[in-house]
């Protein structure tokens, strides 16, 4: 096999039917010598990221993106459906995720149980994931077996309902209920994220209910509900296929065109419209759980993925909680030693994101103590911009993490799909990196001021069962 650098050069996007084979490989400007400037200083060179791809649309509306990477003789086939839990109706939560199970149970030309057997027989792995906005389904398999994945994906996209039996659905309901028990109910702090979403996004908002669904709804969904959901959202016009790996584009294109040619177009779902969620006040909630240590969560509604402010919040999360010198870690864990861990994340989503801080208290410390310090640090970052060094740390970490996400075909395929779906084109890599690199301390300060108000947030205290006095009582709270 030839090792060909996958990341350098030459992008060609062809939305037109004809292949725009205009790839002109450019030498990659990868600096291998050590820079003479200060470690990690702004002088450190940043190679341009180019992920060459070919994009086209089939007659039935399926969006297709192909990216060659010959590093390892593998391919990743990654199908995104633009459907997540946000599309579910009240009383029928969990359907998008239930499909993430049902779609492995067979289709007209794939007998029950055969989906996984066929893939394992060629050395392939497969899985899927569901969030609020989309579901993804992927196979990672040896490059010579690409066609098998195309057969399986096209068959379940086009020919699932004919053979979908109530018994198969019921069987997977049981599995999903056990998934819920394992990941939520029998998991310390497992219910916290569900409760936070309920509080942050009001009833009626598409993000109000949990992705995995409620036990009641999982039981209540009828076979007709399940089938109707599939008919509404799992057609080629609502899907995108990325193939990343060791193949020749022309050949792969022919194979994709062939295998998906008999999949009917299906209805185009209406655009999902949702009034922006608004928190009008600070909400304080306490949740008892079978845990030893209390944990404080703070959540705010923030700008949607790739919208202005999203990137500054990424860096703010790093300034607050990434590394020993980050503001919250250093105060709470390193200096005061009253917390076991801290985290902060801009949880980016299509209809509006959530910025989340979580801190676990050490034994003998209350969440009121913790909250006071968190509040001091929030006040400080709003009062004065983070230093240049803090920004440099955050940006450089972001950049390195970004490269790491480009190592595996599966991750790259997901990024191509995500950029295409949410940023409007697959090759948004450099823009994504650039929007983070362009920021300075004042941007981070101002996003904290605008997006993390004290009077419009959710403060959740998770406390050991029976120990509600450990909950955070707020700035005006006592100092017990």
């Amino acid at each position, binding site marked *: *096999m030839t*090792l060909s*650098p996958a*990341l350098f050069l030459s992008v060609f996007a062809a939305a037109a039917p004809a292949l725009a084979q205009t790839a002109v490989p450019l030498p990659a400007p*990868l600096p*291998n010598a*050590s820079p003479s400037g200060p*470690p*990690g200083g702004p002088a450190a060179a940043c*190679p341009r990221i180019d992920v060459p791809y070919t994009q086209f649309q089939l007659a039935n509306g399926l969006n297709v993106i192909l990216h060659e990477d010959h590093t*390892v*003789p*593998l391919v990743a086939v990654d199908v995104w459906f633009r459907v997540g839990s946000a599309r579910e109706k009240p009383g029928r939560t969990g359907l998008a995720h239930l499909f993430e*199970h049902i779609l*492995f149970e067979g289709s*007209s*030309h794939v007998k029950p*149980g*055969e989906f996984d057997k066929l893939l*394992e027989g*060629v*050395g392939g*792995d*497969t*899985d899927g994931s569901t969030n609020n906005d989309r579901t993804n389904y992927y196979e990672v398999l*040896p*490059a*010579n*077996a690409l*066609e098998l994945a195309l057969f399986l994906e096209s068959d379940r996209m086009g*020919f699932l309902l004919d053979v979908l039996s109530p018994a198969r659905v019921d069987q997977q309901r*049981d*599995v999903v209920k*056990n998934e819920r*028990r*394992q990941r939520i109910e029998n998991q*310390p702090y497992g219910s916290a994220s569900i409760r936070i979403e309920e509080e942050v996004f009001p009833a009626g908002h598409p993000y109000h209910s949990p992705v995995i669904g409620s036990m009641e709804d999982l039981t209540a969904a009828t076979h007709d509900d399940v089938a109707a959901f599939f008919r509404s959202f799992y057609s080629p016009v609502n899907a995108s296929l990325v193939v990343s790996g*060791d193949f020749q584009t022309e*050949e792969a294109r*022919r*194979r994709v065109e*062939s*295998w998906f040619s*008999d999949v009917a177009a299906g209805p185009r779902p209406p655009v999902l419209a949702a009034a922006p969620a608004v928190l009008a006040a600070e909400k304080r909630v306490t949740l008892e759980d*079978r845990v*030893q*240590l209390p944990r404080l969560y703070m959540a705010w509604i923030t700008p949607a993925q790739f919208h202005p402010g999203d990137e500054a919040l990424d860096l703010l999360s790093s300034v607050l909680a*990434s*590394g*020993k*010198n980050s503001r919250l870690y250093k105060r709470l864990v390193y200096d005061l*030693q009253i917390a076991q861990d801290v985290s902060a994340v801009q949880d980016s989503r299509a209809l509006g994101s959530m910025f989340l801080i979580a801190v676990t208290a*050490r*034994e003998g410390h209350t969440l009121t103590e913790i909250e006071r310090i968190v509040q001091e640090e929030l006040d400080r970052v709003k009062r004065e911009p983070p230093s240049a*060094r803090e920004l440099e*740390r955050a940006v450089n970490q972001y950049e*390195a993490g970004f*490269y790491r996400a*480009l*190592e595996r075909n599966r991750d790259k395929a997901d990024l191509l799909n995500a950029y295409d779906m949410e940023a409007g084109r697959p090759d948004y890599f450099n823009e994504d990196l650039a929007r983070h690199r362009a920021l300075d301390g004042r941007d981070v300060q101002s996003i904290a001021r605008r997006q993390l108000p004290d009077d419009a947030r959710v403060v959740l205290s998770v406390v050991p069962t029976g120990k509600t006095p450990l909950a955070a009582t707020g700035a005006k709270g006592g100092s017990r």
Partner: protein
Amino acid sequence: MSLRSLPGILAAIVLFAFSLEGAAAPPDRSKPPQPGPAVPLRLPETSRLKLSNGIPVFLVERHKVPLAQVLVVLRGGASADPASRPGLASLTADLLDRGAGTRSALEISDLADTLGASVTAGAGWDTSSVGINVPVARLSEAIALLSDLVRNPTFPGEELERVRQERLTEMVQWKDDPAEIAVTAFARAVYGAHPYGRRPEGNPASMRSVTREDVRRYHAARYTPGAAAIVAVGDLRATEMLALLDRAFGSWSAGAPSPVSAPPAAPQISGRRIILVDKPDAPQSQIWIGRVGPPRSTPDYFALMVANTILGGSFTSRLNHNLRETKGYSYGAFSQFDYRISTGPFLASAAVQTDKTGPSLTEFFKELEAIREDVPADELARARNYTALRYPAGFETDAQVAGRVRDQFVYGLPDDYFNTYVSRIQAVTAAEVRRVTSQWIDPKNCAIVIVGDRRKIEPQVAALHLGPLTVRSIDEVLDVKGKSPNP
């Protein structure tokens, strides 16, 4: 997620071109398309070099993303911890970036973050490893830092106290997590007082009593050039990389390493015993069934890989198919052999809904018996293919490759190991599978650990008459108040 790739599975290679003709004709869905011809995977070559002081260096050039992974590996891990100090190897590794050379913990973290570097230091059963993953533009600073962490840690007393509290708190948090409770109880049930009966992280008593002097002595004895190897993978050039490494590590001299002897082979379990750990109100029960398995050096390795794929090492494996796909009792069931220098465990496990704990145990034992019989040819062929042909998926990232090269060093695997793996797996016969399963999977002689709601599950378990049942509390298992580090 649906947990389709089960944990604890390894794998293998191949490649091809398709035989393609024709264009968008309607597809023939009457039968699944067959794969094209396989071409053996050839990995980028590993350059085997030495620094001026003799430290072996393994370099793999991969020009894919502008990153490199550099790993310093030291023979001797948690299984060589002194009996009175379980957790010492792990604690020592954890403290390396808490003070080294002239830098404090905060200064090290500041530098690493500024370099965009991810530093990992830890101890497994057989090795300690210190790694750095960094954009290649900042490689030279990163290697200088790595060298400081390995060679010149200062182990400040106040940092030891910080880490001590962090670890003791973590051990308190284990009480919340049924999997943490189960892994602790399982090790003890299978190995008793053998080093593998402990957890690599140690226990509350050892963490309370360990001293700075213990850590310094451990470092002096184990972090020596004679025990070390360096693995570097990524967007680098071998000659430049070797020069950088030699500058950072070539002058490292120290006495010969204290000899690390592998732990003795553990005595096999005889009979069946059940440990039931009470976790009131748990909606699921953790079931862990196992016994002593073979060491990494076993000649049965390839046959066992295939056998385990069939039993519980893949999504279509018998355990997962039965407990998840047929019965719906669980989100996933799996089995694995945990290969170590000495005799690591065999484990079959699942988290099952509380009211199906008894029926799940029945299914586990059905499968553990059945795997000792002849395996049908199509099932064997699928397992061989799965185990062999997914091998390249373990070579996608620099860190994956570095980990595999490290294992090659630690377990003394031959230079051509990666390139012969596929054919060795494909050569496994039905007779070999039967022989190794009869030898290593013995459901009549095994430990059964169950963590769940005793009130609801004890009657279900007792009714099966699998063996003597001992009930333990979570505090007993985790030895939360334990005075002795080696009870």
